[in-house]
């Protein structure tokens, strides 16, 4: 049976050559050590008790060891490959991994151990095979996917003789990559999509329609579509004139994600919220961009559509909290260079650092409308003692004061991560 992977490409097995002329790294097993100890008891005590004539009792040990040593050397090739149904999975999803093994010679003991990259394993990622020539062996196990890129680097393969005295261990390179994408929540739009974005012609989005309204007439410029030419105005003025439109519902949304190391306890929530709001923007037909403020910031230009959405999701999947103390500088730089004017900013940060608070102030100073989704890091911890409870209340009070001080810079949604994001947004919008 031919097995095909992503995009219809056949899986390429990794091949291990176990030829006679290839130098084998054969090592004795712990079982052989025990066997040798049992053997050496006889000569040792024969000498100690001066019964040297009984040394021949080691003969059955020696003959068995010699047979095992001389007649069971691996020769031929072993093919190993891994099958995973897709390469993108939602975080928390259980993914089945199949490992196939095929040899062109008789194998009595072949131990295959798949090296799983730090994921929770359900079942066993290893198996001992006993295969006839050209017989294919399979074992399956499951992994629970976390957000991020997970690289399966290869297998540890161990060949043993029938009695398990010697083993030949190899690492076999076989690369598979799976991406854990963030889980999406159901959310409502926490900002007004009504804006005054001036555009020429229809917007490249499936949801334009009623949102486009006539704004003004101006002179036709090369590159404008022909359908925007206002023929009456052209006849009146003698110059080619074009209609200019204003979109009332097509505000640009820019997601700014604070990827500081301090945010680690709530970072997954932060990413899930970003992805969910992004999907919301996609469904609304709103254009959106992304600034992932890691140490090296990642800026994805404002754009529309599913392809753009999946591109952003890929970046969010791989995002990690980083040593970033420059978010205010990064935001200011972006404002001065790439951020569209009058864009709606969705700032995702627990606002733990002075820098992250300064970034919010910077955005507000430049006149942007900002909605802050701030996962509350205190809501992650459950106080166990009375002292911890009091300490937690103090910390919570401090946070409330800090959020109150920042309230003038934008709408701040203080999100208790134990509650759904939708509820947190609704609570703020109701006020």
């Amino acid at each position, binding site marked *: 049976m031919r097995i095909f992977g992503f995009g219809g490409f056949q899986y390429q097995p990794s091949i291990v050559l176990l030829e006679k002329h290839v130098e084998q790294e*054969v090592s004795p097993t712990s079982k052989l050590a025990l066997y040798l100890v049992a053997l050496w008891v006889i000569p040792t005590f024969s000498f100690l008790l001066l019964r040297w004539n009984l040394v021949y009792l080691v*003969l059955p040990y020696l003959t*068995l060891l010699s047979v095992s040593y001389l007649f069971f050397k691996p020769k031929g090739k072993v093919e190993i490959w891994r099958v995973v149904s897709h390469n993108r999975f939602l975080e928390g999803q259980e993914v089945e991994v199949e490992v196939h093994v095929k040899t062109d010679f008789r194998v009595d003991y072949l131990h295959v151990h798949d090296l799983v990259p730090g994921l929770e394993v359900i079942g066993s990622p290893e198996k001992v095979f006993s295969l006839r020539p050209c017989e294919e062996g399979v074992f399956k196990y499951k992994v629970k996917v976390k957000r991020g890129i997970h690289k399966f680097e290869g297998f540890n393969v161990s060949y043993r003789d029938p009695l*398990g005295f010697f083993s030949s261990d190899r690492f076999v390179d076989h690369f598979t990559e799976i991406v854990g994408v963030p889980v999406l929540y159901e959310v409502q739009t926490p900002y007004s999509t009504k804006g005054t974005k001036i555009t020429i012609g229809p917007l490249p989005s499936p949801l334009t329609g009623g949102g486009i309204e006539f704004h003004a007439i101006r002179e036709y410029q090369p590159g404008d579509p022909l359908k925007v030419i206002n023929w009456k105005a052209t006849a009146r003025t003698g110059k080619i004139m074009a209609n200019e439109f204003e979109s009332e519902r097509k505000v640009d949304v820019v997601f700014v994600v604070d990827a500081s190391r301090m945010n680690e306890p709530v970072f997954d929530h932060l990413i899930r919220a970003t992805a969910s709001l992004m999907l919301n923007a996609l469904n609304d037909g709103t254009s959106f961009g992304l600034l992932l403020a890691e140490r090296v910031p990642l800026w994805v230009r404002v754009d529309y559509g599913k392809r753009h959405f999946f591109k952003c999701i890929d970046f969010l999947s791989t995002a990690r909290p980083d040593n970033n103390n420059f978010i205010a500088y990064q935001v200011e730089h972006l404002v001065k260079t790439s951020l569209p004017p009058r864009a709606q900013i969705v700032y995702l940060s627990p606002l733990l650092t002075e820098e992250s608070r300064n970034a919010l102030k910077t955005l507000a100073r430049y006149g942007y409308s900002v909605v802050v989704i701030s996962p509350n890091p205190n809501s992650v911890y459950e106080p166990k003692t009375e002292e911890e409870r009091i300490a937690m209340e103090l910390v919570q009070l401090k946070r409330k004061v800090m959020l109150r001080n920042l309230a003038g810079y934008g709408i701040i949604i203080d999100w208790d991560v134990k509650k759904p994001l939708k509820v947190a947004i609704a609570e703020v919008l109701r006020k």
Partner: protein
Amino acid sequence: MIGKFFRNVFTTGLFVLFVLFTYLDFGISPETMIVLIFSLLTPLWELAGYFALMALGFFLVYRSIGGFVGLFTLIFGIQYVESVYLTLRNAPPEHYYVLFAGTLLAIPVYYFAYLLSLYVPSLVNTAVASVFIVLLYVLFYIIVRR
């Protein structure tokens, strides 16, 4: 393929032979009991099998029991311990054949050496033993170094 039932019957048969030969060697004695206890533990704890073999080797030398009976006691002992190992791993029949051939090969080798000793001039026991030990050491050196 042989079924699990036949494997277990096989292993039990070897255990009976092993116990029988141990009884022939030592009769009903503490030596027999020690070897028997370790042997019975082998299916649950594989290490116990090697303790049984170590104890057997020591008692055979201590009681000066060699010859055909001593050799066969060891052969059945090794066969029993290793067949438990194979049975627990559902090994194919060929592995059992290897085990039997490998251990029973000791009998012709022993009688060949015995016949040879009738025709070659007798050597001092110490010299033979020394050569034997050196050969044993060299063999293990090669195996372990591989």
